[in-house]
């Protein structure tokens, strides 16, 4: 009988929130946005706007211009005409005029670019680089070393570092500090966002039920504890649903996007083993940092820890904070009044976000350790540590602490809740709310 009732409450909360327009829009938009952020840079670099940038070169030294070569959209057009003749106002047929000083080798800053449109760093750096290389090559030639180009080729050594992390079982796991940091921030922030967003939803739901006096009708048939837990669990399920939909959508859209826009990279990711072996020859020229990241991303054990950790810590953190939000919601008549009483809830959450950055930089340090044990901050801080690898006992201890304090918090919150829902009018102080815990009901 009791299960049927709490089931009905959970069902109502779930259906109500899942059908809301904001949920539907958020659930679909967020993955699109994420994938868009992934794809946009690839798209932008691959899609080039057409049209050449013609740069007229007036080379007073006579040394540089012949060796300048077109690069990207830039095309160089040497001319013998004087600057005054070329530099007529309002020319749209050319991009700009480059003037190279007569004594450019000894005065390398005697290099001037006049443009008719906005100048871009890309163009400027291409010009300075080419001029520099040409001058340097000229100077090198002056030393008259035989076989210079061959020597240069032989000297050039591309060094790349492949990082592996030796785990407790002695196995090796590809590790990428870049990816660890990225996922530490992403998942820490996700926990923060979800706890805040869905905790606030519990708060609003309780206030709405109280101020519309729906609670009065229900309290005779349902225990206040069941009402509170039903709401918390129902909204929590909405959050988990949203997260799962996000992950599926991001995985599907991301795969599609990767294959469409970055075929070779995606293929490379597929070819890589879970535990890092040698680098396949066809990928030898790929950026090693990206390679390490790709290896970690396709490491199922790593992904499992990340998502498993997220679910465990989000659920624990959400339950803990939602109980507090419910207690505050029960004590007030409207959302405005809740703001002040919310302070004890929002402070540890905001503190977590501050500590998050130092935990990301020193994931094994004392600050990271202690804040990942304290239940109020552990959901966010531990999520920031997990990508770097955390001893199992630390995770276990912090989870036990988190869920134990959730149980304690629910007990306290339900005491406040059942007094609070019958209190109308005056907004209570935190001290008064603490007194409610001791009320006998």
């Amino acid at each position, binding site marked *: 009988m009791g299960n049927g009732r709490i089931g009905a409450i959970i069902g109502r909360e779930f259906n109500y929130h899942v059908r809301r327009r904001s949920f539907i829009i958020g659930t679909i938009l967020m993955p699109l946005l994420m994938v868009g952020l992934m794809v946009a840079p690839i798209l932008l670099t691959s899609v080039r706007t057409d049209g050449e940038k013609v740069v007229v070169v007036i080379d007073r030294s006579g040394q540089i211009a012949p060796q300048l070569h077109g690069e990207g959209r830039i095309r160089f057009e040497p001319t013998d005409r004087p600057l005054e003749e070329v530099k007529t106002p309002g020319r749209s047929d050319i991009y700009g005029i480059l003037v190279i000083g007569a004594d450019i080798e000894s005065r390398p800053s005697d290099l001037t670019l006049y443009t008719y449109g906005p100048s871009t760093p890309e163009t400027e750096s291409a010009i300075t680089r080419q001029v520099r290389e040409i001058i340097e090559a000229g100077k090198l030639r002056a030393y008259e070393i035989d076989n210079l180009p061959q020597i240069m080729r032989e000297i050039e050594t591309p060094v790349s570092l492949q990082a592996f992390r030796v785990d407790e079982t002695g196995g090796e796991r590809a590790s990428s500090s870049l990816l660890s940091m990225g996922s530490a921030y992403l998942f820490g922030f996700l926990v923060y966002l979800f706890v805040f967003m869905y905790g606030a939803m519990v708060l609003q739901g309780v206030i709405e039920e109280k101020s*519309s006096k729906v609670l009065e009708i229900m309290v005779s048939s*349902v225990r206040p504890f069941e009402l509170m837990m039903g709401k918390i669990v129902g909204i929590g399920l909405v959050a988990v649903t949203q997260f799962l939909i996000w992950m599926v959508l991001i995985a599907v859209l991301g795969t599609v996007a990767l294959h469409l826009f970055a075929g070779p990279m995606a293929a490379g990711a597929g070819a890589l083993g879970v535990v890092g072996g040698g680098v396949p020859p066809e990928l030898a020229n790929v950026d090693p940092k990206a390679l390490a990241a790709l290896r970690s991303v396709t490491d199922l054990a790593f992904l499992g820890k990340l998502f498993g950790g997220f679910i465990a810590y989000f659920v624990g953190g959400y339950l803990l904070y939602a109980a507090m939000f419910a207690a505050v919601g029960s004590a007030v008549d409207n959302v405005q009044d809740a703001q002040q009483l919310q302070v004890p809830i929002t402070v540890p959450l905001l503190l977590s976000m501050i500590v998050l950055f130092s935990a990301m930089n020193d994931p094994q340090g004392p600050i990271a350790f202690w804040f990942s044990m304290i239940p109020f901050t552990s959901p966010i801080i531990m999520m920031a540590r997990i990508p770097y690898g955390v001893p199992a006992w630390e995770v276990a201890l912090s989870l036990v602490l988190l869920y134990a304090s959730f149980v304690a918090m629910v007990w306290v919150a339900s005491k406040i809740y059942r007094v609070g829902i019958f209190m109308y009018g005056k907004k209570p102080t935190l001290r008064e709310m603490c007194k409610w815990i001791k009320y*006998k009901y």
Partner: protein
Amino acid sequence: MELLRVENVTKRYAAHTALDDVSLSIPEGSVYGLLGPNGAGKTTLIRIINRITAPDAGRVFLGGRELRPDDIYRIGYLPEERGLYKKMRVGEQAVYFARLKGLSRREAVVRLRVWFEKFGIMPWWDKKVAELSKGMAQKVQFIVTVLHRPQLLIFDEPFSGFDPINANLLKDEILELSRGGATVIFSTHNMASVEEICDHITLINKSRNILTGRVEEIRHAHGDNIYRIDFAGDKAALEADLTGRCQLLPLDEESQLYSSLVVRLASRDDVRGVLARVNERVEVRNFREVIPSMNDIFINAVNGKL
């Protein structure tokens, strides 16, 4: 046969005592009025009966044994302050409340259809609650309260916010439920409805039960030996005749138009003597005791004049 017994119940809050040693007994099948001014403790008592809150001392029995958690399903409670989820659909919401009372979804829908038809609100089944008028929302709340066919019904100011036609409709339904065997507790300030509907009352004032019993017995017990005589004959002669035997009371305007007198007797034993004298002098059309209204009793009781 007694359905509910409240025994020496006391409930204290931090600053004040809401109920102080209150006892009452509610017979099965009765319509029981729970009266009292605002803040007297009625709602606290109702919440204790509903197990929303627990008494500090005393006990409550339902059907002969102490109240248990499952007894909730034998009680239907319509609170004074009541609301619905504004953004939910009417039918869906009614089904939800019914399920909270332990009904299955299927059973709830079947019963709800009967009630919705009866109250003529079937067309609103799929509408959002926000679109309902206040009266219509109250009909839904009433239906939800009685849907699980509880043995004991508790109504807190059920008629507030209803127009006279709908108030009448509701009253008839409540009496119908009472005839069907349900015991009804009424918490109200509306004394007219008490006289009309209730057979028993308890008056709570300042956390204490100050008056309890059958409505007719209470009214008669609080009679002040005042009688009204309607007659045909010489009024002045009768007045002269009665002076000294009993106290003549001033008449209200309406009664002055007719041949009527209102008198207070020293005691009930004088009735025969006075009536014989009146009979001698004039032709008696009507001779009856003027019993106080519940309203007067309520006001006198609360002001401590009893």
